[in-house]
């Protein structure tokens, strides 16, 4: 049993070492991409624009529900004017980055893993190697940088839609005073502590989710079964990683 444990730990360390080496190689190779911005913008379109619909619609509905639930609680204490603040703080600090990252893992992460895994299975990555083109620079790095840029932008859009959704339900449907809704939000949301920390979270989640997705694709067994397993692993590992990182970051940012 001890030898099994030792074997498991060694395998895990080995995997971690390889993952960090790949991440480092992506960073190094990514630096050379400033000369070829087209590679990044193409991926940005694929990863970012194609995720817009699911992010915006989800943001809107989360805002709807948040307003109903918030009103239900605040109304008991006669402080429903604080609904705008509650909606805005919940979204900027927590729900915006976290739900966007989970949706991003499901929408963009899986497609990245499947795309890279299938390129590997179809020997496209090996063909690239044989054409003296480094697949880490040509395939992995542009996708990683695009994910890094897309994730915070998507989180900001999700949050904005959520606040608008909260306004629609809270003010237009339930009848909270519009002035109180917006002024409480304006007065209570801090640019650095709330919005800034939310953006930092979304950048960290972007790095984690995008890297997990492309690494899983790159390491996938080049078979239909292997690619399918890698895609599943992307969703499971990145979702758990986002929730764990959220806890760590919230604890670090807590005052």
């Amino acid at each position, binding site marked *: 049993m001890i030898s099994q444990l030792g074997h498991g730990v060694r395998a895990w360390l080995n995997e971690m070492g390889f993952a960090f080496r790949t991440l480092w190689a992506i960073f190094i190779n990514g630096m050379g991409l400033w000369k070829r911005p087209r590679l990044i913008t193409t991926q940005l379109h694929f990863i970012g624009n194609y995720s817009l619909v699911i992010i915006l619609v989800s943001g809107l509905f989360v805002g709807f529900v948040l307003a109903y639930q918030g009103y239900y609680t605040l109304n008991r204490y006669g402080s429903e004017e604080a609904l705008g603040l509650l909606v805005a703080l919940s979204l900027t600090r927590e729900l915006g980055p976290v739900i966007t990252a989970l949706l991003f893992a499901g929408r963009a992460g899986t497609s990245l893993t499947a795309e890279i895994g299938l*390129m590997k299975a179809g020997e*496209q990555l090996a063909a690239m190697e*044989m*054409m*003296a083109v*480094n697949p880490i620079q040509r395939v992995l790095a542009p996708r990683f940088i695009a994910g890094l840029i897309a994730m915070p932008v998507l989180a900001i859009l999700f949050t904005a839609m959520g606040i608008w959704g909260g306004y629609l339900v809270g003010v237009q449907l339930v009848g909270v005073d519009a002035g109180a809704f917006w002024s409480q939000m304006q007065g209570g949301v801090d640019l650095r502590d709330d919005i800034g920390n939310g953006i930092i979270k979304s950048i960290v989640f972007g790095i984690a989710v995008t890297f997990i997705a492309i690494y899983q694709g790159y390491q996938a067994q080049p078979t239909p079964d292997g690619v399918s397993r890698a895609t599943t692993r992307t969703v499971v590992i990145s979702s758990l990683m986002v929730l764990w990182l959220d806890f760590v970051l919230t604890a670090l940012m807590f005052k």
Partner: protein
Amino acid sequence: MQFPRNKIVAVMGGSGSGKTTILRLIGGLISPDAGQVRVFGEAIGQSTSSKLYQQRRNMGMLFQHGALFTDLSVFENVAFPLREHTNLPESLMHDLVLLKLNAVGLRNAAQLKPSEISGGMARRVALARAVALDPQLIMYDEPFAGLDPISMGVTANLIRQLNDALGLTSILVSHDVQESFAIADYVYFLSEGTVVAQGTPTEMLMSEHPYVQQFVNAYVDGPVPFHYPGKSLAQDLGIGVAHD
């Protein structure tokens, strides 16, 4: 094993005999456990990765199923290595790619996607891509597998013509006896990772080596047994074996 300049050398053997492994070793995609691979007098994969990439610019490889980039058109697939390694103006790039495609008879398929062309055509596009940077060494991994007789003949002719016209060194990995013997100058036979016979195609046809005989004449049984090694049928069915 030696692969002389301007020659087509066929590496033949059954599935799992190590044919593709040899190509991967030469291309530096894997490293040898023992021994050394030398291409153009230089050892492969023993220094930095940038050196390896530099060495690969003199090599071309045709993968078994073409390995075309499915998101790019036929034209862009052939243009890919040129775009990555040169700064040619677009008009020159256009002409160069069309000439490469013309050489494989697919100039008019330039705007099609890989999903819109047949397996044989994909193999020819991959061939045009492999010679785009005018390599000195070109490796073919099972170029005839899964092709109809016409495509097979077309591909075999192209391999011979390209080799002679461009003065290449060609390594042809295949298990197709007829087509390979028709174009190869020299043949190596592999079995379980070892060279078991070598010579010109004519010598191989007359060889009395049991493995070569079985392979060339497609005998069902011989040094490569029909049955996967293991227990006998009698043992599996429990015939003549005492039960407790």
